Structure formats: C-alpha cells, structure tokens
C-alpha cells in the first residue's frame, strides 16, 4: 500500500511539472517587476532543479506536509479540510440514496423478469444512467428551482447563514434543502450501477439450488426473494459501494459547478487550471489514499459478509 502511494505521489509530481504553462501566469500584471518574479520563484522553490524539488517533496510528504498552495497561499491540508466535508456529505448522501433505490429496484426487476415491468424499467434505467450529469442538473434547476422555487439554486447554505460547526450546519433544514437537488442529480447518475448489478446477481442467485430448496420448503415468495435471494445477491453490490465512496472523494466537478457546491471537485479543477501544483498534488494524493483504503475496506467487508472468502 505504501508502494502504491509512493508511485502515485511520483506520477503526480511529474504530471504537473510536465504540463505546459507556468504557475506564475496568475501574477502577470503591469506593475509586476523582475524582482517580484524572482522572489515568487524562490518562494515556491521553483528555482531548484526538478530532482531537488522531488526530494524535497518526498521529504515533506513523509512528515505529513503537503506544502502551501500557490494560489491561496495557505497550507494545502487545511484548504482541503475546509471543502472535503461538503464533498463527503454530497457523495455519501447521493450514493446511499442511489444504492437503496438501486438495490430495491434491481431486486424487483429481477423478480419481475420477463414481464412488461422489466420491458419498461430497463430502458428507463439505461436512459437516466446515460444522461449527462450537467444536463440532468440544469433540468432539475430549471424545474424545481427557477420555475417552482421549491429549492435554492446554488451553494450549500443561504446567503449569510451562520452555523455552530459542521454538525449544526449539516442537520439544518437550510443545508438539506441546498443538498437536495445536487444529491438527486448524482443519485440519478449513480443508481444505474447498483441496480443493474443487483438485478444480474439476483438472476444468478435465483437459479441456485438453495433457492429452489427454499421454494420446495414452501416458503412465501417474499421470504424466498428477500431473505434467501436478495441477501446473497447483495454482496458484490456492497463491495461496489466501498469502491464508489473511494472514487467519489474527488467530488463531482460537473455537479459541483452546476450547483455552485463548495466541494473538492471545484477546488481541484481550479488548482489544475491555475497551475497550483501543490494543491492539485495534495488533493489527488489524498484521494488516492482514500481509494486505496476503501479497496482494503471492501476486501475486509467481503470477508465479514461472506465467510467463505476468508476461509479460502
């Protein structure tokens, strides 16, 4: 795991330095003097050789230092921590909704295999799954915010609202009403994967001997489908959830932009386009770490949910 992170850190370091452009571009101004340029370059260590910069970068990383953002002139760690909770809430909220809907609907569609419900359901799922997020987002905005005025059109809270810490903010009605549309957009985008996964697993499981056995025992259809079928079909869906959480740490750039959501995705895009190596590297590294950890969690989870895996 340490090796994976080292590899990621190295690749990130190289990618941002090989990118065309110059991080000082943001400072160009008629009153920008040569001395100021030299001072800035020295301030960010850009006057050192690439190899020296790399060693310094690794050394700082080992001490838990992600460096200072060129753009915000603040430590990368504290910048990321300011927006990460917003991204987490949005990602987790939408994923949980998507997985609950996906699992139930997937099991239901598998049960209704061959009926008109499946004939209608599958194309609907595929269409919403394929619709671009920004489009879904703009449609939801136009309908529920601009036309009906039920939900606010952007941000994570009302203008000038004050809260005592994250818990107070996240449990407030104001925050939840701001969360609703972006979370719905993401849930619409995400729900296809768990749904289709659940459905195909269910179809497999329903042909297994133990299901036939359950039927022979004369159990009710509900008991057969839910307690015997769905429970076993759920395993791979749970692992995919762990992966999805990992991948969603990066935030959804598109949805965050459409809904002016103050999350990590927007900060990352800003950092990349401003040539802010330090912030972009730090953020990507953090995401990579979360993905690696969530992979581990998925593996461990599998062992708990299905004892056969750990015995093997």
């Amino acid at each position, binding site marked *: 795991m340490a090796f994976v992170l080292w590899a990621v850190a190295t690749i990130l370091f190289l990618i941002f330095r090989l990118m065309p452009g110059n991080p000082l571009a943001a400072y*160009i101004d*008629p*009153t920008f003097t040569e*001395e100021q340029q030299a001072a800035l370059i020295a301030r960010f260590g850009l006057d050192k050789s690439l190899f020296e910069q790399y060693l310094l970068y690794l050394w700082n990383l080992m001490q838990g230092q992600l460096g200072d953002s060129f753009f915000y002139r603040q430590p990368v760690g504290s910048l990321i921590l300011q*927006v990460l909770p917003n991204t987490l809430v949005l990602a987790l909220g939408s994923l949980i909704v998507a997985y609950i809907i996906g699992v139930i609907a997937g099991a239901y569609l598998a049960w209704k295999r061959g009926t008109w419900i499946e004939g209608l359901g599958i194309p609907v799922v595929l269409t919403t799954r394929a619709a671009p997020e920004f489009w879904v987002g703009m449609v939801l905005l136009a309908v529920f915010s601009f036309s009906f005025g039920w939900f606010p059109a952007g941000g994570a809270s009302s203008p000038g609202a004050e809260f005592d810490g994250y818990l107070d903010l996240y449990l407030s009605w104001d925050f939840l009403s701001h969360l609703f549309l972006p979370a719905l957009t993401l849930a619409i985008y995400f729900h296809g994967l768990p749904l289709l996964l659940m459905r195909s697993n269910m179809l497999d499981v329903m042909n297994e001997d133990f299901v036939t056995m359950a039927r022979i025992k004369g159990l009710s259809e509900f008991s057969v489908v839910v307690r015997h079928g769905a429970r076993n079909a759920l395993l791979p869906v749970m692992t995919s959830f762990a992966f999805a959480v990992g991948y969603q740490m990066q935030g959804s750039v598109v949805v965050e932009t459409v809904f002016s959501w103050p999350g990590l995705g*927007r900060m990352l895009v800003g950092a990349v386009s*401003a040539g802010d190596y330090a912030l972009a590297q730090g953020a990507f590294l953090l995401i990579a770490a979360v993905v690696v950890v969530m992979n581990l969690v998925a593996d461990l989870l599998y062992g708990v949910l299905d004892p056969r895996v750990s015995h093997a």
Partner: protein
Amino acid sequence: MWKQLATGSAVALMAATAGGPALAAGDEIREIRLLSRPQAAQPQEFQFVQLIAQEWRRLGLEVEVDIMPWEQMADLVWYNRDAWDVTAWQMVGRPERSDPDELIYNLFHSSTAPAGYNFIGYSNPELDAVVEAQRVETDQDARQALIHQAQAILSADQPNLMLVHPRSTYAFNASVWNPETVIDQSGIGIKNVWTFIGAEPAGDQRDMVLNSADTVQGINPLWISGATDSWITELVWDRLLRIGPDGLPQPWAAESYAWLDETTVEVVLRSGMAWHDGQPMTVEDVKFSFEAPMGEEVPMYAPFVGNIAEIELVDDTTIRFHLAEPSAAFLTATLAKVNLIPQHIWDPVLTDLATRPENAEDHQEEVPIGSGPFRFVSWRINEEVVLEANADHFSPPLMDRWILRIIPNQEAALGMLRSGALNFLSDYSGDPTVLEGLAGELAEIELASTTDIGFRYVAFNNRRPPFNDPAFRNALSRAVNRDLIVGAAFRGFAVPSNSVISPALGFWHNEAIDGLETGPDVAQSLLEEAGYEVIGGRLHYPEGISEALSE
C-alpha cells in the same frame, strides 16, 4: 535581429549588382502564428481572432490560429519573448488604472521590455521621453498634453492592434436597491465602493447579495490577489485617498491633502478613526502602512512606495510624504492604493515573517482587521464572504450586510437574480443580450453597462520581423474593421478602440486619434507604399529583405 536583416539586404544587393536577375521583392513572409485562448474560456476572443485571421489572409498572409489555455499562452508570451508572433491579450479595468501612468508607461517604456509588461518589445526613444515627462509633471493640464502626445505617437506606430473597450454589463434589483443610489463609476461600472456604501435599501431586504464566478484567494491588505479579492479589500480597509466616481482621487481617510512643493505632499488624517477591534487609528499606523512595503515582506506593494524618501509626522494628525522625485501619479498610485493597516496587528506578524521564507502574502488573518466601512464577518471558501456595515465609520454604509456568493454557473446566477436570491449581479460574462431580455421581462431588474477602462487587443511581437516594421503593423491593424468586431464578437457591447487610455477616462483620452480609418484597401495601399508585394497570392517582404525566421 537588425544585424541579420542588414546582412540579408547586403547579400541581396550583391546579387543584384552581380548581374543576376534583379529581385523584384524580398522573401515570402513566413506563416504567421496568432495565439488565442480556447472558445470555452474566451468566446469573444476566439471569435475576433478568427475574424482578424480572415482579414489578414486576404492581404496574402498565411495565418495559423494557435489555441492554447491562458497558462500556456502567458508562459510563451511572457517568458519566451522571442518565440511568438502575434497574440490576443487583454487588460482589465481597476480603479487605480484611472490614472494613465500605469498603462501608458509600463506597457510601452523600453525599460520594461526585458522582463516587465512591455512584453511586445516596443522601443521608441520619443515615446520614452514623453512618458517619462508625464510621470514627473505635476501640473494637470501640462500632463494631459503629454498623455495626449503619447497616445498620438502610439497611434502612428501601432505597436498593438487595439481592438475594443468592452462594455461591462451588470444588473441589480431596483425593488431592493434604490436606483438613484446605485453609482456608476467612470470606467468601472456600478460594482464599486461608492455603490456599496451609498446603496439605499428600497424595502425590507437590507442585505446586498452579489455574485462572482471566481473564487476568493485571500483577504489580505498586503497582497494583490484576484480581481474579486480587491472588491473586499477596498471595503474592509481604508486608504488615504479614494478614486472617486469621476475617476479622480479624492480625500478619504485623509481629511485633506496638499502639495507643499513638487516633492512634498502633506496629508491631514481624519480624526476619530478606529480599527475594527476598537483601537484608535493614529498617524503612526499610517506611517507604518506606507513603510511596511519598503521591507522585503510585502513585494507586491513595494513598487508603489519606492518613490517615498521619507515620511515625517508633523503632529498628531499631520503626515508629510517627501518624495525622491516629482511624481504626478503619486496620489492615485500610492495614496489611493496602499491600504491602511493597524500597526499593533501587523508589526509582530511582519517581524515574525522576516525570520521565515514566507512573506506577508502568506499570512491570512483569522479575522481581518481594517478600519473600512465594512467589517469582516465570515469567509467560506468557494462559497461566500460576508461583511457587515461598520456603523462607527465616518461614511457608514446604508445596507446591513454585504454577501458575496461564489457562483461559477452563469445560468444559475441569472436564475438567482430572477428569483431574488441575488439582488445585485456584479459578475456576468455571459451573452449580454440574454441579460437585456431578462431586464425587459422583469420590471424590477435594472441593467447598467459601462465602457470599461480595460481593453481587448492583439499584441504584435515588435522584436520579430515583419512586426518590427511600423508600416506593416499599421497595415495589419487597419485591415481590421473595429465596428465589425464590436458587432460580431461583442454583440454591440463594446466600443472601438485605438488607445490604451479608454474614452471612459474622458480627461486623459485623446479623441483626435479616434476613428482609425480601416478596410482592406487602406491596408493594401499601406503595404504597397512600404514596398511589400503580393506574388502568387502570398505577401512578400520589401525588396532586399529576407525571411530570417522561417521554420
């Protein structure tokens, strides 16, 4: 470069005298690369660059439009000054640019060519002399004549192809803000400190909610960061003078100011001023504010105090600035630019920073303390900044709070203006006709558009042939019909330009050079006069000049 050209012509001359076939023209001009930013980022620029390339191709030039993001373009143009031909560029309007010095000097004086803003490498001793003279001319009318003269020289030389001054368009909700009290600052628009102080609530809504598409980088009186950040620093911190709605400096934290002689300015500080933490503001604080940038820790403000030789405290309210040399722009570029900061807060910070590699730009105060008309309340990154009215200020705002929302989605910003979630549209880069439509549909939405101090232009690399020839630059510039650009790329929301000093700065702008005659015929005859020739559809250098830069 000149040497190469001279050698080239000498060789050609020898060839001609040696009895070979007489050359009717020089070499074919190489393919010209015109730089632009991507359509998604800069739709107007992308559009006008295409139109300009088209016009130039008609003259017999091969033009390739090279699209690249800003970081890459800035790197090429700024740090590789010999490696490009022509580029689209822009200057944005800021209150301090109401004084012509910053633009007319820094963009064209030969001293800024190696590493400063004269990245085009323009060099003209006559212009150097004039812009130096205006800098030290403290008589306003004499200075005006010099500024006009400089503009005339630039018009004759066309170091850049000046294109347009955009008309920035903003909007506000007139049922929330009394339109009489929304002030249009010359060249800046309605989004200015005078509006923010003077805007009178028309109803119960006493918070101004405005928008910016760009994120806030920092709230720091010693760091010149993003454009949006400067809206905030102007409100939280006071300055001795402020640029008034007419574009000229007027007393602010200074009760009065006077030139005692050519190099001495005496300022009387307003009495009873206090910092947001309750401490009184003293003349020592003022002295400290101007001395702080003289050290190593405040690099971006250092150029503005470089001309101060000494700051003398005459008594408890009077400060004298002794200058190293006379400076006409001192009032605007220094007294109206440097933020007044509390010594009791910044002195320990700067002392500590002196021992570390960081400087004042890296220091973000938890709660920024100024003395300005607004107090800092909160800042949530990428989301909003909240300021509240400082009732103890000598010019207290009429609104309760000033709430800046960061909204990257233009359509959402429009939707919020419509729904009332925003009541002041302070940033809009979308299609102005859409905004016009909204204002036509809803009676309470009022539109305000202003000719900008800033401008859009196409910069020629004056170092590289053929752009080192003023006749060639003139022809290329005159090939472009500015009215067409205004209509096609800016939908009418711009005015044609031939000067870096915008018509919005009525006192400084030279009207005599407006209305440059353009058209393909004008351009072609200029080229013919200068000896350029079209052979086989391609433009060739005048006789004897060879292409030194063909790839």
